[in-house]
């Protein structure tokens, strides 16, 4: 059990680190697409690590199964949400930074 505790602690810490970098990127990155990328880091890798860390803290019973279901659900929905967000921004005509630079040079 001692080994599992250490492993879960490490997973939780790394997950928190990725969550923090995601939040930092959301504020510091220059344009919409890079920010969506930062936000999707929070909801993909950070949530996977944190939920796995929490799974190791359970007694491997119904709670573990619930956490696995939450993880599966998040892994299906949150990349889809990021994708839909980025795609509708594209659809609305938003350009990334290199593209808008190119457009400026051409005009």
């Amino acid at each position, binding site marked *: 059990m001692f080994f599992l505790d250490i492993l879960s602690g490490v997973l939780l810490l790394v997950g928190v680190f990725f969550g923090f970098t995601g939040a930092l990127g959301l504020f510091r990155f220059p344009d919409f697409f890079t920010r969506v990328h930062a936000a999707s880091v929070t909801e993909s890798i950070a949530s996977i690590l944190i939920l796995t860390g929490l799974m190791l803290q359970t007694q491997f019973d119904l709670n573990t199964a619930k956490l696995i279901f939450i993880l599966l659900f998040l892994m*299906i*929905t949150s990349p*889809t949400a990021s*994708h839909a967000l980025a795609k509708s921004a594209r659809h609305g005509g938003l350009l990334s930074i290199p593209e808008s630079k190119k457009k400026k040079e051409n005009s």
Partner: protein
Amino acid sequence: MAVLIDLVLLSMLALTALRIIFLKDLFAVVMLFGIYSFLSALIFINLDAVDVAFTEAAVGAGISTVLMLSTLALTGRKEKESKHSSILPFLVVTVTGAALIYGTIDMPPFGDANNPIHQHVAPRYIEQSPVEVGLPNMVTSVLASYRGFDTLGETVVVFAAMIGVLTLLSVRRKEDDEAPDSGLKSHRVLHVVAKIIIPFVILFALYVQFHGDYGPGGGFQAGVIAAAAIILYALVFGLPMALRVISPKFLQILAPLGVLLYASVGIYSMFMGGNFLDYNKLAHDPVHGQHYGIIIIELGVGITVFAVMLSIFYAFASQAERRNVS
């Protein structure tokens, strides 16, 4: 630790509220309202009120955000500049706020076991409900059995909300909806994921509906979750498709049906010789009667809430769609 979490959550709640006041972009305000509801749900969880947190997350952050967004599609996303002076409203708000804060001074200390709220009817519910009602989830016992009459009133209020909305905004169907056009036709990924998710959402709604006696959940949450599944379908595949799956006419039958189901349990128990909503008379064994009664009235609540939420969404969304077409 719990106090620390409460402090952090409450200060985030205050910051969100302040931001909502000062923002002029209504789209961002709606998103912040969603965050506000999630934060309140977290506070409820910290207070061990899981059922309330569940409702807050489903209704406050889920459905009402969608409804407010569809309202924004009708009204536009910028707040109009007010021409009136804001001194008088500010004065009124300050005086009311000061009176409310003055009122909190008289409140009993937070979390004290000798508070009136813990001394009045709560001990009876905690001691007697396992014997009288026999449900593991005490919240459901109180909501559906001891306070069954109040819950009937709440269900009627939800039903009245639907009547109000449908009087003002009727659900408009285009006559020539031969080729249902989706707003997100090119979103192949969204289509696939929505098709995977929607059956599970409906399954989860049924679980919440019928597991409400044993864990957090019940008719209100289940109705909202089931409505959310259909709303997701309408958002991804287009409103005409959703109108074909569940028509507004059908919902207008379902909504009163739920209320009537609830009330008829009360009438039936009167015929069996008890009081209104006295579930003890529903079966030979009082505890069994309680179980039957609670399951049926929760079903009534779930049906009504589902129909009402979906009708309100249809009413708003069909108006927005009509505006886009014309």
